[in-house]
């Protein structure tokens, strides 16, 4: 595996978005992963619609009664992939723009689908496998505990103690090998995480979290998605 890898340098990552005051992080994580997969399949980067997921995806978790994707009230990336698979795909961002509110009515137009899911799968907890999957398959949808993200300004986050209770959906776009951790007096490797709180948060909208110890549960729920290859 390369020591450093970043899908942003390879054109597979759309601009940082802003979910606003709406618990729709799961939809941004989902679209980010599919945007990357679609780039790998087609060579084109197309920004996809989160609002379609917010309005139209009510997919439920078969193993947890009452746990369904529910717009600004939350959801799960794997359920959203399942919805996308069943619905046929996602529309373009500009065809179904984000409002950050639960509108209640679904305005999905099947004729405007631009990216479709071929399949999705969960990646094992092994960090080498996570790295291998991001390199081979594109950005990964991951869940994380966001407690340190409320006050994060920059640098490599590597808290001594962090809960592994997952509460936020983000996108893993790559990794680096040399984030300096002064207290540990050595270079620390880290994951590069794309967030959905706008460019004014963190490092231009991105978060760096150190690798190696499943910090804040970042290795616990990792999903990779493949897009349908199109000829157009």
């Amino acid at each position: 595996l390369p020591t450093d890898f970043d899908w942003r340098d390879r054109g597979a990552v759309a601009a940082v978005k802003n979910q606003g005051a709406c618990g729709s992080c799961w939809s941004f994580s989902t679209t980010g992963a599919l945007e990357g997969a679609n780039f790998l399949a087609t060579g084109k980067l197309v920004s996809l619609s989160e609002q379609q997921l917010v309005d139209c995806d009510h997919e439920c978790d078969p193993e947890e009664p009452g746990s369904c994707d529910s717009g600004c009230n939350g959801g799960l990336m794997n359920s959203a992939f399942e919805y996308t698979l069943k619905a046929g795909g996602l529309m373009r961002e500009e065809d179904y723009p984000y409002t950050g509110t639960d509108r209640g009515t679904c305005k999905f137009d099947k004729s405007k689908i631009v990216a479709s899911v071929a399949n999705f799968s969960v990646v094992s907890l092994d960090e080498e496998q996570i790295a291998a999957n991001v390199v081979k398959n594109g950005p990964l949808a991951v869940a994380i505990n966001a407690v340190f993200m409320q006050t994060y300004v920059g640098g490599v986050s590597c808290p001594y103690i962090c809960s592994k209770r997952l509460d936020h959906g983000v996108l893993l776009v790559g990794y680096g090998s040399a984030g300096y951790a002064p207290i540990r007096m050595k270079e620390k490797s880290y994951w590069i995480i794309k967030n959905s709180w706008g460019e004014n948060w963190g490092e231009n909208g991105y978060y760096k979290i150190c690798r190696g110890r499943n910090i804040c549960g970042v290795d616990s729920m990792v999903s990779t998605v493949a897009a349908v290859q199109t000829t157009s």
Partner: protein
Amino acid sequence: KSEPLIRQVVGGADNLNDPRLGAEHHFELFKRRFGKSYKSQEEHDHRFKVFRANLRRARRHQSLDPSATHGVTQFSDLTPAEFRRTFLGLRSRLRLPSDANKAPILPTDS
């Protein structure tokens, strides 16, 4: 070998109300920077209290997470519960679905 042994990661109670934090000044800068305004004086006072608590929290986070920088963000006038309710939204589950496809193991040595 270079991992730390034991290190104090929380400040003493004296630090929590450190006047050097200059909370009023920081709050004014925060409001200006993020375009925040509050509909009443009560709301303003409440948000200032929350902001002050978050400054202390940022200091704690800085101690616990020294390789990152923690400080004032656009969420500094929100309690942790408000932050979770408004900006997080993962329907948490403890285990992965049993029927989920598992990604094949990839070679990592080449």
